[in-house]
């Protein structure tokens, strides 16, 4: 039996009974999953690549020398950048979902569902199509697209935030309906733009609507380091605020957080990650919805653990899904966004049913 000594001045050590749910097992499981997913994605595909080829391709790349054979070239120029892209985008989407769910205090607040990704897609599509008419073509590329997508995502986030939040309380139904409206507008606008688009642009538009990592190469990757990896690392510092927000906006304020300011900047970071992901890979839904939700069931809602695990698991999930999409109908490939929608849709319905008993 533990002794109860409230006025104990001795150094407060941890007594029994504070068992964190996230065990070493979950951590190592997530890291192992990511490593495996990465390896599998490097080795699978229509062109056979051995483990030795993959590792020497990476050493060649690091020493910036030419790849020695075709297999190494495939790894260095195609699979490795694509795998890194998938990992970064998956991590960004997982963390962005974790943040929007935490800030809106609702497990259904996924960037894809509330229209944030849609806003980003609309902005990016506009840039692609309109750059043909405006003297912008020199600017389009790995930086302008993410910036435009970020702006689109930010605009939608702001609208949703203003619409759905009254005095710190999020009205879920309103927020989701607003998201539907945004998604409809995005679809219609993309439809309109297809009329004015030429053949090349049409191909791009289709790719936006389905989501794919096929356009991954090193320049995109560098842009994503700035637009995804940086915010992912920065938001880790806000884990405590997201924890405190579980008790409500007022309580987070009582616990010493500048809620309004930090919440705005967290949403901006989420919009940046979701926007950059859309700019490079089109709309890939449900990672932001499913990953934090499943992790919360496994390891509890503590964001100090949830945020990094969402990054790891989001990366693994998209890597595996993308690998599957490349292999399943090789040499053609399935858009990974379709695959995520097919698996994510049912999960979303399951979530809705569970939620309906409590909130909607």
């Amino acid at each position: 039996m533990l002794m109860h000594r409230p006025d104990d001045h001795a150094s407060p050590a941890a007594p029994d009974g504070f068992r964190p749910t996230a065990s070493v097992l979950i951590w190592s499981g997530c890291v192992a999953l990511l490593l495996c997913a990465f390896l599998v994605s490097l080795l699978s595909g229509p062109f056979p690549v051995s483990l030795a080829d993959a590792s020497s391709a990476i050493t060649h790349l690091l020493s910036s020398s030419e790849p020695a054979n075709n297999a190494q070239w495939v790894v260095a120029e195609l699979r490795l950048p694509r795998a890194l892209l998938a990992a970064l985008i998956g991590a960004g989407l997982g963390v962005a979902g974790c943040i929007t769910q935490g800030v809106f205090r609702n497990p259904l607040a996924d960037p894809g569902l509330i229209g944030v990704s849609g806003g980003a897609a609309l902005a990016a599509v506009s840039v692609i199509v309109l750059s043909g008419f405006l003297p912008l073509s020199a600017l389009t590329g790995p930086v302008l697209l993410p910036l435009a997508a970020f702006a689109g995502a930010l605009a939608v986030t702001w609208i949703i935030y203003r619409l759905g939040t009254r005095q710190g309380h999020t009205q879920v139904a309103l927020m989701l309906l607003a998201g539907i409206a945004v998604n409809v507008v995005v679809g219609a606008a993309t439809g309109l733009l297809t009329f004015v688009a030429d053949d090349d642009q049409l191909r791009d538009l289709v790719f936006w609507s389905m989501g794919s990592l096929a356009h991954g190469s090193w320049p995109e990757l560098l842009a994503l380091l700035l637009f995804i990896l940086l915010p992912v690392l920065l938001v880790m510092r806000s884990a405590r605020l997201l924890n405190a927000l579980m008790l409500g906006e007022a309580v987070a304020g009582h616990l010493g957080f500048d809620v309004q300011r930090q919440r705005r900047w967290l949403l901006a970071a989420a919009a940046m990650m979701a926007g950059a992901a859309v700019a490079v890979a089109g709309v890939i839904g449900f990672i932001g919805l499913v990953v934090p939700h499943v992790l919360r069931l496994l390891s509890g809602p503590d964001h100090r653990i949830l945020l990094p695990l969402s990054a790891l698991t989001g990366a693994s999930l998209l890597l595996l899904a993308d690998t599957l999409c490349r292999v399943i109908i090789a040499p053609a490939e399935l858009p990974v966004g379709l695959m995520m929608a097919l698996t994510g849709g049912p999960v979303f319905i399951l979530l809705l049913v569970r939620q309906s008993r409590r909130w909607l």
Partner: protein
Amino acid sequence: MSLVLSDITLRAGDQRLLDQVGLTTRPGSRVAVLGPNGAGKSSLLSCIAGERVYQGRITAAGEDTGAWSPAQRARRMAVMPQSLQVTFPVRVWEVVAMGRYPWGDEDSTRQWQQAAMLESDVWHLRDRDYQSLSGGEQQRVQLARVLVQLWQQRQEGGDGCYLLLDECTSSLDPAHQHAVLASARCFAASGVTVLAVMHDTALAASWADHVVLMKQGRIVREGEASLLCDAEVLEQTFDLPPALAGRYACQNGVWLPGPADKA
């Protein structure tokens, strides 16, 4: 250090939730704020807690509390809200640990957290999902979180610190009501000023050393707890029929701490 409220006015649209409220509290005092529904009790607390934008001035030892940063405020003021909705399945000990966020030492003060949980009688619930608890149990968990926020002040002297409790006993059984107020009394004894919004006049009579009676956004009477034994005061404040006011006054008299309690 005294907390001084001068001319606090809080508006919501055309309505005045608080109308030129003035109040001075001594350090270490136990202040009960009472009044009918909609009298502005919770609004008053939220102004002190810095949640609302008000007109007027609130000072602590001459310092304008409106100028405190959220982080500064959280190290001097712990607030227990009337009700709150938790969104995700968080466990009891995790909720209590958040009470140490203002200090950033939630991992190294487990012993204090344990003591606070024992004092609020929720230690046996520490591994439970907060959402699965009853209303009263949830209230006790929140109390433990609030208490642990000022735990070292209670040990080292809490002058200049404030504990704001908004109907913190509303869902509790009688034994827990008095136990909770006994904890609050401990904090006050160390110099922490405790301000509690209450509905139960008998409970207030048994605990407070200063009562503030509010009605329609104004303070109508304030003074010692014996004020609650005055039938006329109760009648006016709560719009009670005279017969009921008399009974309540009588009952509250029984609850006033006698000479034996004070010893």
